[in-house]
């Protein structure tokens, strides 16, 4: 069982990978059957409804490949982000070597650009409740499931392509 301090250390390290745009290292945190889910309605079954993001590991790889290896417009210029991780709680896992973790995150995001550019230069804040299922694999904790419920998950969103 992870302590709160250990869980926090894991989550802060994960947040740092995203803030530093080390997306491939972030992707490698996920288990082979890992899921990354950003729902609109967190109470609906994602298979029979539509989510902002509902990535299995293959789709997650496409997402990271798109951000790092293809000529995207929506991340050119790229987002700067600052993530705060707080309210960390640990709970028993669903099986041996598994652990549930909850936290709240506040994500500040901004894309820099020239003067007068619509959609750029204005910092915005996203607040999220996050749930993780972590699994111990080869002596390391990895993400088997990550759910990010934005405060305004079912409201209109601007570009979320930076990985919330």
């Amino acid at each position, binding site marked *: 069982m992870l302590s709160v301090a250990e869980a926090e250390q894991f989550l802060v390290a994960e947040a740092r990978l995203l803030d530093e745009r080390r997306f491939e290292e972030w992707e490698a945190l996920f288990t082979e059957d890992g899921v990354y889910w*950003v729902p*609109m*309605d967190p109470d609906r079954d994602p*298979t*029979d*409804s*539509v*989510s*902002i*993001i*509902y990535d299995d590991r*293959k*789709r997650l790889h*496409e*997402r990271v*490949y*798109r951000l790092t*290896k*293809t*000529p*995207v*417009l*929506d991340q050119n210029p790229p987002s700067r982000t600052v993530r705060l991780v707080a309210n960390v709680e640990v709970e028993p896992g669903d099986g041996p070597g598994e652990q549930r973790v909850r936290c709240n995150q506040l994500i500040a995001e901004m894309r820099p650009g020239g003067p*007068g*550019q*619509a*959609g*750029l230069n204005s910092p915005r804040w996203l607040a999220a409740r996050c749930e993780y299922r972590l699994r111990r694999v080869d002596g390391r904790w990895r993400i088997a499931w990550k759910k990010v419920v934005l405060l305004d998950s*079912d*409201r*209109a*969103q*601007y*570009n*979320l*392509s930076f*990985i*919330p």
Partner: protein
Amino acid sequence: MAVTQRARTYGDLVVDDPREFRVHGSIYTDPQVFQEEMDRIFEGTWVYVGHESELPAPGDYKTVLVGRQPLIVARHEDGRIYALYNRCRHRGAVVCREERGHSNFFRCRYHNWVYANNGALIGMAQASGYPEDLDRSRYGLVPAARLASYRGLLFVNLSPTGPSLEEHLEPVRKYVDYWFGRSPSERIQVILPPHRYEYPGNWKLQAENGFDGYHGNYVHLSWQRVLQLSKESTVEEVQQYRQEGCVRGLRNGHGLLERPGSLNPASSWTARMMHRYPEYAEAMRKRFDDAQLMEISARRNIFVFPNLYLFDTHIRVIVPKAVDRTEVQLYVYALEDVPEAINRSRYRGHERFYGPAGFGAPDDIEVFTEVQTGLAATGDPWNLLHRGQHRERVMDGEVIGHTTDEAPQRSFYREWKRVMSQA
């Protein structure tokens, strides 16, 4: 520029030159143009407000903005749907604050005036303060001038005059019918909640993009690379596909982008699903002949003037909020009476490209913001929409162009100019 002057100049803002069709940048940036669009287009013509499957049971309702005006769309005990202005007849408060829900009545929280969901005034607090013979029928929630449905697609018109919905839809109707035909019972079921995104740009940037076949190889090159990664298609194959089909500019401002239909599983989604799921093929063949299946299997992005797109995965609604702020709602739908796996793969396919974190839609949004920014530069204030004007052909009242041409955009702006020029 004053309103009265503006009314005389819309003809100058959309120049229907036979060699160089162009529109003036101020139509995307001038707040006064926006207010008049709300008056004349969104509050004066047929506007899409939802699909009947969003309100399956008596008591179900949703609230919408029609132009700038708050309305409730509700299903009453009599099974019928009503569109009502969301404004208490007493002192003007809204009688519903929710986005959608289920209720047998709407109650104004200010002085407890209560209305049935067909708008009838049921009662008010301390009714003895009014004469006993008060005619309550005069004080119901005001209905929209017109509400009409085409195969479950609900439209409101706040103006009592002008064409019927049937007349408005006539030029695009057969394509809407084909769109329903991917369900063997020709029915759809909207899946809630919708994807919603907002961008700092004018609503017409979304309207003129959904049937634009010219931008795909550039704005969505990133998407093509993802498809290549997953070995679904090479960039060359997708770029070849994007040369096939046509665009159609239709009367009344409608238009579409079309990829050719096919009964070959390698060449169309419908044929591929029929090949993969024999029970789907059987149901489709029972309902439609080969000629109909050819049309149904053509993939189309269908625009219905002024605020509706029908896509293969979703119903797209454009909600203008200000001259430089727009919300777009994507209502994904299930095709009824098809194998569950078909719909699930449609949802996953939709998430992959669309929505605020999809692999395609945010690239489109990015370009809208680039246009909105660029329009502030007025050295030459004109935007050009004359691509393909020299090679388009007219057939049965449709203007047909190469898949990368701007025929549907020209149809859109001809209708825009016609409606905006009406006093």
